[in-house]
């Protein structure tokens, strides 16, 4: 009797739960769901400075500038920028902008944001603002920043730094990132940790009220589930689609693929100066021995672009005419090996993470087998990403490593600063002429002259030094529901300003 009572109770609970729960597919017409591929810890970049968090954050916050689809800098909360002298920039700010809690946006906001980026406990942002020595605010809508040395890309850096409300951010302290307030088109309504964030349109947005009234961000780390969500109509936008899934998504009546140039430059880091890799002819041979076209066609299904050098295709300063410089030529590679005194090749380790970049292991395997053809014997070693990255970044990696270079400031300087400059963060193969040319370009404020210097530097690095094995650049692949009207930029964030539902 007692057991019967219990099972009756369980039955009632189950049925009751079923009656009160709304059906899963119930969505208001102007609500969309975006899938974020990793958990978000904080929406405050001072705490968590990652692209995945910025997918949400960039729609809650505005920045002084933004990049357009060609990676050209455009005004956002700043209307214009100009240089007063070699080390001082002046920004004119947009007037009448308010934060979602009513705080006004003005020059003091910018000053506070910079100081916070620098001084917040364990801040992740000092690398962008460290060289700013003085901030002046001659009037409430003008900011003048002076840096220690000429900084031609200071405005670019402010395309990443979110403007935060001084009073509220100060009051919230370390918790600001869990209940953020910005000047952006959407405000955070609720956040179920590890599962979903709900945002609603900000009716007072200075750029006009957003057309889509509600945006839900769901956190799903498994790629197959993300694709299933899109095909099932549970998601309107997924990021970083695997090249193998493009056809299947395009065949769906509900979804399609949006393809565009990205900033993910893939290459093999050459991890030592010692022989034989220290010889430029050997490094050139390694470059000639890779059949990039075949890898792009057969492994990446065509969703990549062959490029040379360090500057991404869409970034100003890229040298298009050298894109075919090291086209596949095993004969020439053999000749170079002979000239370098290693006619019978050598043995080298090659490292790759698995599942971190699209088709990473498959690509590394293909390159290894192409190297065998010219007598270079490759030990392919797969490594977990955390370990791989830590070793590469602390200059402990030997041999060859399959790696991605991004570009967060839309300028040629970044790659050189971090990887090729001998005083930089993780230079492996260095060159005195690269140092000299880079230091000159880095300090040149005039944009056209600067870009000309970088083109000269790229030409020198590609043709004379070959410090790495240049490969290709991955396209960005987004999965979109057919009802969503949205256009992408090369950055991996999702800018919803201007997004609409077609119906």
């Amino acid at each position, binding site marked *: 009797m007692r057991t019967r009572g219990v099972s009756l109770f369980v039955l009632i609970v189950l049925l009751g739960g079923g009656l009160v729960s709304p059906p899963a*597919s119930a969505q208001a017409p102007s609500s969309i769901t975006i899938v974020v591929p990793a958990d978000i810890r904080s929406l405050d970049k001072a705490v968590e400075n990652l692209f995945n968090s910025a997918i949400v954050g960039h729609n809650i916050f505005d920045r002084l500038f933004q990049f357009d689809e060609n990676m050209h800098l455009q005004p956002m909360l700043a209307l214009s920028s100009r240089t007063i002298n070699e080390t001082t920039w002046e920004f004119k700010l947009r007037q009448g902008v308010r934060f979602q809690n009513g705080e006004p946006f003005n020059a003091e906001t910018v000053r506070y944001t910079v100081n916070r980026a620098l001084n917040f406990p*364990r801040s992740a942002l000092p690398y962008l603002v460290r060289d700013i020595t003085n901030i002046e605010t001659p009037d409430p809508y003008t900011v003048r920043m002076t840096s220690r040395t000429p900084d031609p890309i200071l405005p670019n850096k402010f395309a990443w730094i979110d403007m935060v409300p001084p009073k509220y951010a100060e009051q919230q302290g*370390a918790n600001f990132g869990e209940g953020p307030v910005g000047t952006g088109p959407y405000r955070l309504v609720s956040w179920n940790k590890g*599962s979903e964030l709900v945002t609603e349109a900000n009716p007072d947005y200075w750029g006009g009220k957003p057309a889509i009234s509600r945006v839900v961000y769901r956190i799903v780390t498994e790629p197959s589930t993300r694709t299933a969500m899109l095909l*099932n109509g549970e998601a309107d936008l997924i990021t970083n689609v695997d090249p193998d899934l493009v056809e299947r998504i395009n065949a769906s009546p509900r979804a399609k693929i949006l393809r565009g140039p990205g900033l993910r430059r893939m290459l093999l880091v050459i991890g030592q100066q010692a022989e034989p890799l220290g010889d430029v002819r050997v490094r050139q041979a390694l470059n000639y021995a890779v059949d990039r076209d075949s890898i792009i066609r057969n492994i990446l299904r065509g969703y990549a672009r062959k490029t040379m050098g360090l500057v991404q295709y869409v970034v100003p300063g890229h040298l298009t005419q050298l894109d075919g410089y090291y086209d596949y030529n095993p004969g020439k590679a053999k000749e170079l090996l002979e000239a370098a005194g290693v006619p019978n090749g050598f043995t080298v380790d090659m490292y790759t993470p698995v599942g971190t970049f699209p088709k990473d292991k498959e690509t590394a395997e293909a390159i290894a087998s192409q190297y065998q053809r010219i007598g270079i014997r490759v030990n392919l070693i797969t490594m977990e990403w955390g*370990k791989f990255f830590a070793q590469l970044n602390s200059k402990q990696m030997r041999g060859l490593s399959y790696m991605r270079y991004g570009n967060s400031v839309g300028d040629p300087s970044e790659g050189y600063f971090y990887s090729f400059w001998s005083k930089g963060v993780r230079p492996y193969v260095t060159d005195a002429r690269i140092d000299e040319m880079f230091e000159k370009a880095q300090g040149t404020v005039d944009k056209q002259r600067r870009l000309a210097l970088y083109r000269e530097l790229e030409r020198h690095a590609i043709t004379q030094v070959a410090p790495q094995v240049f490969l290709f650049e991955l396209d960005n692949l987004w999965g979109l529901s057919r009802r969503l009207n949205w256009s992408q930029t090369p950055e991996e964030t999702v800018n919803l300003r201007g997004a609409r539902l077609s119906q």
Partner: protein
Amino acid sequence: MSRYLSLRLLQSVVVLFLATFLAFALLHLAGDPVQLMLGETATQQDIARLRAELRLDRPLALQYLQWVRGVVHGDVGESLRYQQSATRLVAERLPASLLLAGSAMVLAVIAGSVLGLLAAAYRNSWIDHTVRIVAVLGQSIPFFWLALMFIVVFSLILGWLPTSGYGTWRHLVLPAVTLSLLSMARIARLLRSALLDVMNEDYIRTARGKGLDLKRVVVRHALKNAALPVITVIALQFGAVFGGAIITETIFGWPGIGRLSIDAAVGRDYPLFQGIVVLSALTFVTLNLLADLVYAALDPRIRYA
């Protein structure tokens, strides 16, 4: 009884320390949390500064001892990446995990017992064969494959249930069923063979001999004895369910501890990872103790030993 209990408790404490020391050592051997936190744009200067702020520049042994001291005082430490207490983070995710693991266990025990009972009662019939096939499949099909097949069939083709997410009972069905299958299969197989063993005993023959029907004999007499090994296995299955939850939660976007622990391991967030290890180990150890107590209650031989 109390000596038996205190011995078990002491063993549990040793298990806890070994588990956390292993977690600590392994995460430290393979990579650096600071590099991963700051990403590709960090300079050596940034890395050194953060390492000092997080006290990661101290000797490893000292770091571990300091952590142990904290645990003894009830503080499992602060997550490096979330900059929040590990206890709070685990507490945030615990309800979702308990709901999933609890539902899966209830499902496994009920379905597993029913299947095991039926198979034993109708030995060598088509019911028995079907149960055995299901049990073998349940134990051998990998979780992730099954989970994806469920999504394809029940979400994409039939459209009955959502692919993933958390909130209503509809979101719970697929992950709970996926997670329950392995344990269900084990329980069904074990109960079947335990029942078959018991059914050959003299007292069962006596019971049959005095005219009781099969159903009564199984339920009244055989089940009580056959249940003993099954209870031990049920307690152990909580460990399997915890492990399986890591994959299940990842595939179904379920905001539980399994996913949190992957994030912690991948990010080398060892205070958080150790916090999760301590709490999972505690749960596991407690459940095993409970199972021992139930065992002792059911079986006088253990109680008086």
